[in-house]
Every structure is written in C-alpha cells, then in structure tokens.
C-alpha cells in the first residue's frame, strides 16, 4: 500500500509531462491561436471601419467643397457671361452708331457734292445763257475762253458778296 516504486514514479512523471506537452500544443496552442486570430480579426475590422468612416467623412467634405466650388464657379461664369454680354452689346451698339454716323456723313458729303455739282452746272448753264444772250445782244461771237473767264470772275464776285 505504501511501497514506493521507482518505475511507477518515473512512468507517472513521463505520463504527466507527455500529456502536458500534448495539451499545450493541441489544446492550448490551438485554442489560444484561434482566440488571438479572432482578436486580431476583430481589431482589424474595427480599424477598417474607423478608417472607412474617416474616408467617408473626407469624401463628404471633398464633395461639399466641390459643391461650393462649383456654385462659386457657376456664379462666376454667369457674372462673366453677363459682363461679356454687356460689353458685346455695348460694342455692337457703338459699332452700329459709328456705322450710322458714317453713313449719315457720307450721305451728307454726297449731298454736298451733288449740290456743288448742280451749282457748278447751273453756273455753266447761266454762263452759257448769259454768253448766248450777250452774243445776241452784241451780234457777234465772243471769244469763248476769254469771256468765259470774265464771267466766272464776275460770278465769283457775286457769290462772295
């Protein structure tokens, strides 16, 4: 009952150690590895979720910035367009006015020219008539060129008076 036996003690020691090493490798090793793996996965998921939330927030900010930028841009474009339109209309108006002025001017010039021409032709007519009349009165032919110069001088005098 109380006899000590070297071999039984030795085999018991070996048995306990073998079972310990076995359980350490196949029970605790596997279970702990699995628990660590799960903890790692959960941590990873949480990190990922946090990162994604940050990214979403960043995207939201970007989007808002882009929206406000776009609004500014649109406003600027409208203002520019308005400015352009105004400038263009002013330019067109001015051009039209200039054109009209030019047309009026040229018409006036033409008119003046026409008048001059008609005056000149009238003068010629008058001179011719006068000379004809004078020819008839004098009964002889007047030296055309010399008399015409005299008549012209006379008419100029009359004009200036």
């Amino acid at each position, binding site marked *: 009952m109380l006899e000590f036996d070297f071999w039984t003690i030795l085999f018991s020691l070996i048995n306990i150690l073998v079972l310990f090493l076995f359980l*350490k490798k196949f029970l605790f090793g596997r279970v702990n590895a699995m628990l660590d793996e799960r903890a790692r*996965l959960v941590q990873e998921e949480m990190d990922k979720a946090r990162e994604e939330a940050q990214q979403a927030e960043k995207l939201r900010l970007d989007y808002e910035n882009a929206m406000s930028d776009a609004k500014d841009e649109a406003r600027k474009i409208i203002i520019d367009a308005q400015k352009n339109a105004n400038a263009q209309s002013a330019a067109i108006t001015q051009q039209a006015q200039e054109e009209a002025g030019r047309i009026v001017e040229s018409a006036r010039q033409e008119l003046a020219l026409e008048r001059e021409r008609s005056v000149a032709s009238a003068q010629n007519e008058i001179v011719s008539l006068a000379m004809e009349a004078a020819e008839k009165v004098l009964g002889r032919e007047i030296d055309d060129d010399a008399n015409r110069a005299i008549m012209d001088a006379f008419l100029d005098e009359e004009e200036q008076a």
Partner: protein
Amino acid sequence: MGEQLIHELENRTVFTIPIDIPIVGPIRIHESVIVMWGLMAVIMIAVLLMTRKMSVVPTKPQALLEMGVKFVYKFFEGNMGQAGRRYVPYLSTVLLFMGISNMIGLVGFGIKPPTKDINVTVAFALLSIILIEMAAYRGNGGFKGFLKSFLKPMPVMLPINIMEIVIRPLSLCMRLFGNVLGAFVVMKLIEHVCGLIIPMVFSMYFDVFDGAIQAYVFVFLTSLFIGEGLEEENHKLKHAAHSK
C-alpha cells in the same frame, strides 16, 4: 473480507520487462500506469477531435471549449497574477488529468483510480514543487533574488522556508493519496455491506465530489505557491502597466 480488501489495496504489477537495471531493478509496470495510459489516450483523442476543425466563428462545441480554456486562465491568473500566465497550461493539464483519474473508479470494470497509488501522487507533487521553485527562481529575478526570498518576510523564517521545500510536496502528495485511498476503502466497504443503489449515492460523494475537490485543492495550492514566488514579478508588471 479483510483479505479481499487488502488485495484490492495492493498496487498490482501488471507486467515486468525483465531488463535488470542496477539499484532500481527490472522495469515494473503498475496497474496505475496502465490506467493512466488509457486515460491519456482517451483525453488525447478527445482533444484532437475537439480542436480538429477550429474556426474563427465558433460552433457550439468549440464555444464551450473556448469557454473552458478562458475559465482556467481566469481562475489561475486570479491566484498567480499576470506573470503566472505561462504556468496555466500545466496546471490545467494536472487539473484535468487528476480530476479524471480520481473519478475513474465510477466506470467500474475493476478500474481503480491511479491516484490511489502513492507513486502517482508523488510524481504529481514532484512536478509541482519543481514548478513552484522554478517560478520562484524566475519571479525573484535569478539566483540571488531566489536565495534572498528564503529570508522573507523576515530572516527568522529561514528554516521554515527551507523546510517548506519538502513539506509542500509532501503535504500535496499525501493529502491526495490519503483522500483517494480513503474514499476507495470506504466505497469498497459500502459496496461489500449493501447492494447496488446505496453505493451509488455514496459514490456521488466519495468519487465525484471528493475526487473533484482533491484535484481542485491540489492545483489551487500549487498555483497559490507559484503565485507567492511570482509576487515581485507581478508587482513589476503592475507597475509597468500603471506607468504606461
């Protein structure tokens, strides 16, 4: 009846390998060693089956297994602190092996608990004291600290501290052996006196309850002694965690 009981109490040698080794004699294989081998085989196969297909999303059996592992870690860390974490697999092995060994008498077929053999409890106690002193050596930061720990809490305690190296394993081994043997004897007597039903009731106490309690007490005390040796290391760990 007395003769029969004495016969039951003997540690039978099942077979002998006739290689004569000086001093210790030929290799004798006791009944208790054979029973241990059987238990080991069953435990190993069960563990292999349970941990064969582990997944991150656990099935019900795996969740139970994880719960058990987490429970022993929590229980032993309560006694030994953070620094004792590395001793948990050994202590859990002892708890499981010893618990099943104490209760194996329940299955019948004349199988006797291996822990009824004092040589087996000696082996358990030897490993316990080796682990306790190793933990104290490590926990006190080397040989100098280990020697100094014998003067704690005061130098007068030196002889008692030295005696404890022997007393601790002796008490562990004898308590276990005495309890299992006592329970075994009482159960044999009850079985001898009355029929079938009454021994079952008593067996609930002597085999199941006492067997579990003894295994629990053995690992509890071992972890407590280990924790004592790890006090300084735990203190340092706690300090490091605080200063973080």
